[in-house]
């Protein structure tokens, strides 16, 4: 059987994790549908979403697993961490407890993913300025100390949502180009799709065009 033509050349697997109610599903929905859900029920188990984005001239399909934050789902949602190329770790800027739990989320992520997994920290609900409970500088410092990328975002206004998902993909793509991420490793969270006829694959490109991201 010949391979079907793909409209993208890579698949990246993402997970979204963090306490319940921090806005994980709303971030996903804003990213895939460009809409805000003002009254979103708790996720049951896991939700799934996809979107194809363009990174450095490559079409990349993001397969995103949005995990439920409620305690009773934790044991099984952990099984979705394996093989994630990107992890979006979310807290709620208006609820300090969700921030305090980050180190335990981070430990879990580090234990269950690869060393090459890109972890992006998102402080969500940045639109609720009056209710801020975690200073930007404090979270930024936490991110720097732990080598995480970081933005404050709002699933409501869409502010920085696109950036978080796309920057994560750029970082993963850089890791592929640098050879830090082994495409052949089963749990890299990245799949390379056979290129279409007449289309260059990454390895064909010599010299590599320097990516402006």
């Amino acid at each position: 059987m010949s391979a079907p033509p793909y409209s993208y050349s890579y698949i990246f697997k993402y997970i979204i994790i963090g306490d319940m109610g921090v806005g994980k599903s709303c971030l996903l929905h804003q990213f895939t549908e460009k809409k805000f859900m003002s009254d979103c029920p708790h996720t049951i188990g896991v939700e799934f979403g996809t979107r194809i984005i363009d990174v450095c001239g490559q079409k990349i399909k993001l397969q995103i697993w949005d995990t439920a934050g409620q305690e009773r789902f934790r044991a099984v949602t952990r099984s979705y961490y394996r093989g994630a190329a990107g992890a979006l770790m979310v807290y709620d800027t208006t609820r300090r407890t969700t921030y305090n739990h980050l180190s335990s989320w981070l430990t879990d992520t580090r234990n269950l993913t690869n060393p090459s997994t890109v972890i992006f920290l998102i402080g969500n609900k940045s639109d609720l300025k009056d209710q801020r409970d975690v200073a930007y500088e404090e979270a930024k410092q936490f991110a720097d100390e732990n080598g995480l990328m970081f933005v404050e975002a709002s699933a409501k206004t869409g502010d920085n949502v696109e950036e978080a998902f796309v920057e994560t993909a750029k970082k993963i793509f850089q890791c592929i180009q640098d050879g830090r991420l082994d495409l052949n490793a089963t749990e890299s969270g990245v799949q390379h799709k056979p290129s279409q006829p007449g289309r260059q694959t990454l390895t064909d490109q010599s010299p590599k065009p320097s990516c402006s991201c």
Partner: protein
Amino acid sequence: MEDDILNEIVSSEDLKKFERLYLNESTTDNLQRGTQFNYAWCLVRSRYSADIRKGITLLEDLFKTEDSTNEHAKRDYLYYLALGNARIKEYTKALQYTRAFLSIEPGNQQLANLETLIKKKMEAEGLKGIALAGGVALAVGGIVGLGFALAKGKK
């Protein structure tokens, strides 16, 4: 492999892990509902339909024996009953479960997404014309009056 919620496969490692927990508790007569749910959740994501059917049986059992005030637990079971049935191509049953859920919680995006996915799959398999026999009140897998059972738990 193209993933989505209907063809994502549980790792055999995880399936074994949650099976072991379930069996341990069962044999010591100390079975927790959460353990049964976790095992069922893994079973319905198996590549083997026998596993999925086993998962469905465990979920039906949980649903029937759940405290009627525990609406959240019932939502969880209904969702995975719909998913499990869809994965073994029992589409009519699957859609009855999603309908039951949506009749109580019409705006639930996650359930609406699952329903859309099931319908797409049916269409792809040429089952477009299959009508839904009966409504929400129909007995599915021995669970009678799903909508009612759920509504009772609502304040």
